[in-house]
């Protein structure tokens, strides 16, 4: 029986939620091809057998590394892939996943598909954006193993009733090591992973008005803050929040673009969002051509009303 190997992403000793979507994709692929799913954490972590089983894993391997080593982790993944005859290695298309995919592919002497938004089990064929989402390509990897990273919010978690078997495994050491992780945006999810995002642009007038966006974000569970490059370049917001071609690519269910004109480089980072709401004073602003819903007017007046109405809804 062939195996699909999922690389779990660990932070602060636990498996990050993005890994559940990857497990869901692996489960769907495995069910179609009669394969089994092995989930691998290359460093020590708390692995919940019921949780990971429900998410799609048949077996969970937990490595012994105390710290993440980028090259060491890739070597562990490649070894486990070989030991288990994996036909496919899947990762989340996060900072960590993007870091690992090329290394793993190089060690397995194969190619990889980055940032995939769909997988067809026949092949398998991976669909992924190129030219910052201005086109999609379908690719097939002609080698023993296919390596692919998957974009957040595109693959559903499995949600089945099953318990995974948890085993420990050894970890390879590497020549580099993560010595520290500092959390920046306490409390709020990262813009690249959130299911709901509100981004502000130059139209907000200045960093002193950001509390208006924060009020809206506070009223919607799991909403992340984003920004246009103009605002990041002006030093109003950190680069980690920048959405667009030279920032993060996001594809949430709901994206608010507030005081953002809709330049092609901004659109490149968010145009695959499911629902886009634009709030802009200028009814000719290009963003309205890409928005599902638009409200024309002054953001400084609309945002407080939006926050008020949202609070009344008491969303959980």
């Amino acid at each position: 029986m062939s195996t699909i190997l999922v690389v779990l992403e660990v932070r602060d000793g636990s498996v990050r939620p993005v890994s559940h979507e990857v497990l869901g994709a692996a489960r769907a692929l495995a069910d179609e091809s009669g394969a089994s799913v092995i989930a691998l954490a290359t460093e020590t972590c708390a692995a919940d057998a019921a949780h990971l089983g429900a998410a799609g894993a048949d077996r969970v391997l937990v490595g012994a590394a105390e710290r993440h080593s980028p090259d060491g982790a890739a070597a562990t993944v490649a070894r486990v892939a070989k030991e288990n005859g994996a036909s496919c290695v899947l990762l989340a298309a996060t900072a960590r996943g993007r870091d690992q995919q090329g290394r793993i592919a190089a060690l397995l002497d194969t190619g990889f598909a980055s940032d995939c938004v769909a997988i067809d089990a026949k092949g398998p064929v991976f669909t992924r954006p190129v030219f910052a989402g201005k086109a999609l390509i379908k690719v097939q990897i002609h080698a023993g193993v296919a390596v692919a990273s998957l974009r957040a919010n595109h693959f559903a978690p499995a949600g089945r009733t099953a318990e995974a078997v948890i085993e420990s495994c050894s970890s390879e050491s590497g020549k580099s090591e993560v010595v520290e992780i500092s959390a920046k945006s306490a409390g709020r999810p990262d813009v690249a992973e959130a299911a709901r995002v509100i981004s502000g642009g130059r139209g907000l007038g200045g960093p002193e008005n950001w509390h208006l966006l924060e009020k809206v974000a506070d009223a919607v569970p799991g909403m992340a803050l984003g920004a246009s490059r103009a605002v990041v370049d002006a030093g109003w917001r950190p680069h980690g929040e920048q959405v667009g071609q030279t920032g993060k690519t996001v594809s949430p269910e709901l994206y608010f673009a507030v005081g953002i004109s809709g330049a092609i480089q901004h659109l490149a980072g968010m145009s695959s969002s499911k629902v886009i709401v634009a709030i802009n004073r200028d009814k000719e602003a290009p963003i309205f051509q890409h928005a599902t819903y638009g409200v024309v007017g002054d953001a400084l007046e609309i945002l407080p009303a939006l926050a008020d109405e949202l609070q009344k809804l008491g969303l959980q």
Partner: protein
Amino acid sequence: MVRLFGPNPMNILVCVKRVPATTTRVAILDGKRLNPEGVEFVLNPYDEYAVEEALRRKEAAGTGKVTALSLGTADAQKELRQVLAMGADEAVLLAHAEAGFADAATTARQLEAEIRKRGPFDLLLFGKQAVDRDQHGVGPMVATKLGIPCITEVVNLDIADGKVTAEREVEGGRETVSATLPCAITCQKGLNEPRYANLKGIMAAKKKPLDTVQVDLSGAVVEVLEMAAPAPRPPGRIVGEGAAAVPELLRLLREEAKVL
């Protein structure tokens, strides 16, 4: 093949790619590739950070050499001349008519072979991603093949006494990674402010060595079956004007779009 020269990196290789400008409107040819007609090509924006970092490291060391390497079409000589004009010492073009859209594995194989021939290098610099295929992979692939450490998407880099400490942005925070030279770094916006080539640099670049080597790109691992435009978004609508439109907007988000 890759070796450590001394306390500061001096022999530096920077990999650069010619890519369509970010403003390109993508037209598709044969259902498989970008129609290059009318497309403006530029040096990959992230590679500008890599070039700048290479030049600064050499300047800080007070000695050394910066070599630029690109796999590209013959036209990529233009971008290599630009890198020479910024201050690199020499450039190598691995030329192939179809190089523009090669997959990461094929590209990495070519770059690795040339690096083994031209090295040893103390430091390899890459962009975090080329803004055409957006693969985020060539840097770590090359480093892995060479057996050296690689730190990706770096926004802050410190090198002292052969020790490398780099910061990278991760979801919701920053990560500090340590390694030793020789090492590969992929560069993210924020690492530095790339310089522009001045007239003196442009004149000097004309006399700097630019080798062109023809390469064979057969045996791609990743086959592109199809390229298509993304499905068009259903047309949107203006809900209303000002704060008065908010209740209707929320109704639509809840009842029609069902996202709240």
